[in-house]
Structures are given as C-alpha cells and as structure tokens.
C-alpha cells in the first residue's frame, strides 16, 4: 500500500501537470510556434527516436564522467580544507570567487583553450560547475567533527589515517550526498550549457539547437522533456547510492 502510494502519487502529479499544460495551450489556442502542447510531443519523440537515444546517451555519459571527476577532486579539496586551517584560509576565497563566475562565460574560454575537443570541453564544464558544493560540504563535515569522536580512537594510539577511514569519512557521508544531489543537477546543466552555447552536433543540447534552427518547436519542447527525464533519472540514481552508503543517517520516521 505504502509502495503503491510512493509510485502512484508522483505519477498522478505528472499527469495532472501535463493535463493543465494541454488545457493552457488549448484554451489560449496557441499555435505550435508559440508553445507546443504535450499531445505534440509523442510524434516528435517518435520521429527523432534514434537521435534522442544517441544524443541522450552523449549527454548522459559526459555528465556522469564530469560528475565523477567532481567527486574525486571535490572530495580531495574538501579533505585538504577539513584538515588544514592554512589550506582552508587559502582556498576559500579562490573557490567562492570561482563559483561566483557565471559558467556560461567560461564556455567560449574553454572552447578557445581546447579547440575542437568537444567531449573534453563538455566533461570539463560539467566538472567545473559541480565540484564546489562537494568540496565545501566535505570540508565543513570534516572540520566540525566533534573532538570526542577523534579521541575514542586517538586514545588507543590510532593513526590519523585510521581515524579518517573509520570515523571522519563515514561521518561526512550524509553531508557528501546532500552536496552530490545539488552537484548532479549542476553537472547536467554544465553539459547542456556547452552543448547549447557551443553546439557541435552532440548531445541533447545540440538537438535542441537544431530544433530551433529548423523551427521545429515540438522537437524543442520534446528535448526539454527529455532533459527533465534524464535529470530525474540522475537524481534518483544518487538517491539510491545515498540509501546504500548513508542510509544509516535516515532516522526511522514517527
């Protein structure tokens, strides 16, 4: 029953949303070039189904790769900041400053730096846009570890590495996954940013761009829906990982 509700409620919400959208377009008698309606989308998906699969895969693997690099580098920076005050003081202004730069402005910079390296550029952007939350949350998680947690192992003569692996790292996992949920969406945005701003015929962003060029508005809306679906897929993948590795942090409800 509980399982039914968990699946049925979100599906019902999506259906209601699509109905409202359809009604909005129908009531206003908007033509396709103003706003496509949900009923226009299935034909568009079917017509370009091969492109959707191919481009969707392009977007997916580049996002995931960028995110993986962000996890490794972000965690590394976070560990550095968590354990060293000097590193924290030195890196914070740099990180905050870098994070404040709108990433769209970096697309041409990267495109010029690595001319023609489309896959590389896209993965790089997905990484650049998404490592910040991970670095900050791991850093804060490690630096706010209560001294007693360290003391129970330190009083036995455990090394710093042992304390890190047995206590500090697992204790920061809930914060890490909180950040990863933000980062996964950001990485996805980063990938699409490059695909749309600097199109090179790959990824869902490029498909969107081609819909725009050809005046195929249902295709553009179909791409947006595909992006939303892929975003949901990635988000829930992170959620599953969180359940597996940090499920202990979830308190029994009630």
């Amino acid at each position: 029953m509980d399982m039914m509700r968990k699946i049925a409620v979100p599906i019902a919400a999506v259906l209601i949303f699509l109905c409202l959208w359809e009604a909005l377009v129908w009531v206003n008698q908007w033509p396709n070039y103003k706003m496509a309606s949900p009923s226009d989308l299935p034909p568009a998906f079917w017509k370009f189904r091969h492109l959707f699969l191919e481009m969707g895969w392009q977007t997916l693997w580049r996002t995931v790769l960028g995110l993986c690099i962000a996890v490794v580098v972000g965690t590394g920076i976070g560990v550095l900041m968590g354990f060293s005050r000097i590193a924290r003081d030195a890196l914070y202004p740099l990180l905050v400053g870098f994070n404040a730069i709108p990433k769209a402005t970096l697309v041409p910079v990267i495109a010029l730096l690595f001319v023609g390296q489309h896959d590389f550029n896209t993965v790089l952007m997905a990484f650049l846009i998404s490592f910040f939350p991970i670095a900050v949350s791991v850093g804060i998680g490690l630096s706010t570890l209560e001294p007693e947690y360290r003391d129970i192992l330190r009083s036995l003569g455990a090394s710093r590495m042992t304390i890190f692996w047995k206590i500090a790292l697992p204790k920061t996992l809930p914060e890490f996954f909180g950040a990863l949920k933000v980062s996964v969406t950001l990485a996805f945005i980063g990938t699409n940013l490059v695909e749309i701003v600097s199109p090179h015929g790959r990824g869902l962003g490029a498909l969107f761009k081609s819909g725009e060029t050809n005046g195929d508005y249902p295709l553009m809306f179909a791409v947006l829906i595909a992006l939303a679906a892929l975003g949901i897929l990635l988000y829930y993948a992170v959620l599953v990982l969180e359940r597996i590795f940090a499920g202990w942090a979830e308190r029994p409800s009630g």
Partner: protein
Amino acid sequence: MDNLIDIKGVTHAYRTKSGPLPVLDDLNISVPEGEFAAVVGPSGCGKSTLTRLIAGLMKPDRGEVWLHGERVTGPRRTVGMAFQNPVLLEWRTILQNVILPLEIVAPGMPRRDREARALHLLEMVGLKGFEHKRPSELSGGMRQRASLCRAIVHKPDVLIMDEPFGALDAFTREDLWQTMRDLRAAEPFTCVLITHDLRESVFLGDQVFVLSGRPARTQAVLDVTLPADRTLDILFEPEAQDMLHYLRDQIRIAQGRDGETH
C-alpha cells in the same frame, strides 16, 4: 611501585587571547591498582583536562603522569575512555561499535572472538538482543551502556570516564551506577571517574578527590569506607551521609563560599 596511576605535580595552562589560563596547579593524585578514584570539583576547574592528560592526549606544562610505572608521553592502548556524550558511530550497529577498539588494538583477533567478547559485555550491561540495533534506536541510558562496553572491550588497565552519566535522568543514572559496580566486580580495572555528582562519587569510589577551583589542586581526599558490594540504600546510611556532608563542605570551600550559611 604500587600505584597504577601517579600524577605528580602536574601544572597546566591553556593559552588564550588574554594570556595563559592556568587550569591545574601542582596537582597530585595516586590511584593504586584496581582502585576506583572519583574526582569532584567545581565547574570549569580543569577536570576534563585531567582526563586528557592521563589518556596521553595532551602533555602537561609541568609535572609528570605515570601509568604502570611508565611515564605517559602519548596515547597508549591500555586506556579506555567514556564521555558524557556516548559518541557511538551511527553507521555501525551496537555490536560493531563495541568492537571498534579491538580493530585498533588487536587487528589480528578473529572476528568470531571479537564478537564473542563484545556480546559478553553487552549481556552483562543488559543489552542482550540489542546488538544489531543502530545507536539511534536506543535510549540515552542504553547508548551510555554500549559506550561503557566499548571503553572496556579491549581490557584496558585504566578506564577514564568524564561525567559519563551526567546527561541521564536520576533513575537511569542510578541504574548505571549499579551496572558500573557489577562490571568492576567482573572485570577488574583501575578507574578514574570525573563527576559533579557527590552521591555518585561515594557510591562508586574507593577514594574521592576534591579539586579546588581553577587552577585546580588537590584540596581534599576522602577514603570511602563502605563495603565493595554497595547497594543504593547504603547512601542513606549515616556513614555515607557523613561522607556526603564532608564532600559538600569541601566543594563549598572550593567554590570560595566558605562563609555562606549551610
């Protein structure tokens, strides 16, 4: 040397922005092997500093700490610690939490033996059947019991406790005193207990050390002359009441309120 713990002339100060803050001043405490030393004193008099010094987590500015005839210069594996906060690891079950020190101290010990040892202790403190629960599923008193098991699972020579029962309600606290008494009867160890609770110090201690206000020095030492197999009722006997009155007076002096009406 008969004493397991020897604190000789320990003086320590914290460096703060407004200059050094002396917390311990020429402190002397000796605890014979197997004895239970309770340390009481006004708030903020450096009692927690004392636990960290004995555990080798800090070095005193002056003076020496000796354990088992060896000078303490760093952490040693023969020490167990328990704090007011049970600091159990939420991602481990109760059993895995209790085993933790064995993973550090006896990495070669077979898993079966580790678990048997931990289960034995959990049964002694009344947590049988809870070994596979997570800490968040247990009450505060039960978590503190598990924390005690973890502190002694590796059979330390010295158990250092920093107000381990301070956050519990009065009745749970009394339950844990009795658990502590039974543990000591089954597993001999030398114990240093930091506490604010005078009844606790008399019920559990063989000796009670009263520290003066900051900077702390040994103001008074009380030999608790009650039998080893104490019950809670003994605290209402005249002998125990006299000791409690004596300790209360000493605390009053330590707080610098000697002249106040009793």
